């Protein structure tokens, strides 16, 4: 299979385009997926202008290939978008809805957790809801408190939702194709600071199964469990610590739900020490879930208490100096690892 260097943004778009070519039931729904869609400027239709292609340009080019019936620009109405996408998923389409920043899920939460997530269970297994909800998570460019959150732990706490948090372009493409082909609602979390990162990505479509962790570094002294942009910070820390003679294993679960419990426990059993890095929340977040898992199933193998590296329990601050202090980084991960190996 041929590969080429692609950005995370290109990998996401390629996955969407390839799935739309494969299956006519796949449609895109969202705000400004094309942008500029209006009679305001009579030239727009004729020149096939795609102004935004999603707020950070991820979907640019899809409208030109697939047209307005399959790349559907909506008004700014998140509740209606998710409700409509859920209804369409129940009745034969495979919608991929984009809601820009995942902070905006607040207004449509009912459609997500009372409707889409429950259809299959409530209807006695007779319903399928092949729905993908894409959105951006993550702090890192001063987008401030209402555009910077990482609420994947909120979605993961809802039975019926699958939650995907890819950390690199290769995983983003394979996991997104898997999400589109999945018959359950999938929340697909794209970290906005990863869009311009590059990776070798296969040109052909491929899938990565949910619930299978990826070991991005192999090591023997400490396990670092990290997701999304935090995987890069963890790898950076692992490289630095390797120079000091500390061998760090970095485990990227890739999906928060389902969670690869075995993949995490295996690594913890081998190293006996674990640091969990989590951008979601300082309380009741993904990190606490993994810590509870380890406490329940791997306590005997632990040589030191579990270390959590999270932001403080505050909204994301705007000012760059405060935001930098808020975000976990490689230095904080290194400190946590050193604490464990010297304990």
């Amino acid at each position, binding site marked *: 299979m041929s590969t080429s260097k692609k950005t995370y943004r290109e990998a996401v778009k390629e996955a969407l385009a390839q799935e739309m070519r494969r299956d006519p039931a796949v449609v895109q729904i969202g*705000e*400004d997926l094309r*942008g*500029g*869609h*209006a*009679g*305001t*400027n009579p*030239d*727009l239709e004729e020149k096939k*202008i*795609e*102004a*935004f292609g999603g*707020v950070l340009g991820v979907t640019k080019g899809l409208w030109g290939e697939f047209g307005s019936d399959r790349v559907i*620009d*909506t*008004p*700014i*109405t*998140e*509740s*209606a978008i998710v409700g409509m996408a859920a209804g369409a998923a129940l009745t034969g389409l495979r919608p991929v809805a984009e809601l820009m920043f995942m*902070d*905006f899920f*607040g*207004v449509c939460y009912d459609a997500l957790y009372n409707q889409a997530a429950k259809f299959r269970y409530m209807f006695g297994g007779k319903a399928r809801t092949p729905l993908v909800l894409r959105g951006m998570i993550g702090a890192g*460019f*001063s*987008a*401030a*408190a*209402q*555009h910077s959150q990482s609420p994947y732990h909120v979605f993961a706490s809802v039975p019926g939702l699958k939650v995907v948090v890819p950390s690199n372009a290769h995983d983003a493409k394979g996991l997104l194709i898997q999400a589109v082909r999945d018959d359950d609602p999938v929340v697909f979390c794209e970290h906005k600071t990863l869009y311009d990162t590059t990776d070798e990505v296969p040109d052909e479509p491929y899938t990565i199964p949910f619930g299978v962790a990826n070991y991005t570094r192999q090591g023997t002294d400490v396990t670092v469990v990290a997701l999304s942009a935090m995987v890069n910070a963890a790898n950076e820390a692992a490289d630095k610590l390797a120079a000091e003679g500390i061998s760090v294993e970095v485990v990227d679960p890739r999906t928060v739900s389902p969670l690869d419990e075995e993949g995490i426990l295996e690594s913890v059993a081998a190293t006996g020490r674990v640091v969990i890095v989590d951008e979601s929340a*300082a*309380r009741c977040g993904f990190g606490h879930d993994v810590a509870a898992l380890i406490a329940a199933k791997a306590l005997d193998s632990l040589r030191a208490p579990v270390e959590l590296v999270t932001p*403080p*329990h*505050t*909204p994301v*601050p*705007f*000012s*760059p*100096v*405060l935001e930098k*202090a*808020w975000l976990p980084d490689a230095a904080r991960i290194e400190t946590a690892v050193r604490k464990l190996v010297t304990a």
Partner: protein
Amino acid sequence: MSRIRAFEDRLHEENATGDIPGFIHLYSGQEAIAVGVCENLRDTDHIGSTHRGHGHCIAKGCDIHGMMAEIFGKEDGLCHGKGGSMHIADLSVGMLGANAIVGGAPSLAIGAALSAKILGTDGVAVSFTGDGGSNQGTTLEAMNMAVVLKLPIVFVIENNGYGEATGTDYAVGAPDIAARAAAFGMPAAKVDGTDFFAVHEAAREAVERARAGGGPTTIEARAHRFYGHFEGDAQLYRTPEQVAELRRTQDPLVIFRAKVDRRKVSVKELDEIDEESRALVDEAVGRARAAAYPPIEHLLTDVYVSY
């Protein structure tokens, strides 16, 4: 209006230097709406705003230096650098915050109106929302609630023709947003948002009605966004010629100059006001650039933390 224009045009330049963090959404072209409405309000009245909030902040009386410092992420900012452009707030002048959530203001503003009604303060609330926000369910829920509870509120819909990059004529089903008010049983006005006097008159009537216990009003004001949705927007959805034409024919400051009573205000006086505005903004930028970033310890202040 002059201050808003000077502030926004200068931010357009400052943003190009790369020293402003995050997103900036400029209000130039819509000045007559914020000022025409807020001129009818007192410090004790409240407004809720949008992600395009600088104009509302200035019109409601927020300190220019505090705003500029906030936008640069500095400790001296109105929110001590924690909010930024999209979250500027100053409750001391009744500014409940810009709001980065489309349709975020209406439900908050009916809360302020409820407080005014229950506490008997004689206060009025104004919710500023764009044409995009007018389609949010919460906006319609807030309108219904305001009528049911007879709240002292004015819903100002600023129709600038675009929700981000998507045209109103695509995204708003019926062309008349103001007409929706009738479905909720409240009066509405549709005004030319480039004309300060028209906005001011419509707002005066609505604010007086609200203050007198007459309940809510909707005002749809049509104006034009001179810059893109955000700074850095290539504006592929319209041509530079279209924007130039809007700037030539739809500039609220030019229209104000043409309509203002010459016997009361001379051209020279207007020129002096513009000059003062530019000087004020110049000083604000200088101070904001020189100001310190917040100390790292402040990361954990103003929030409930017990662990």
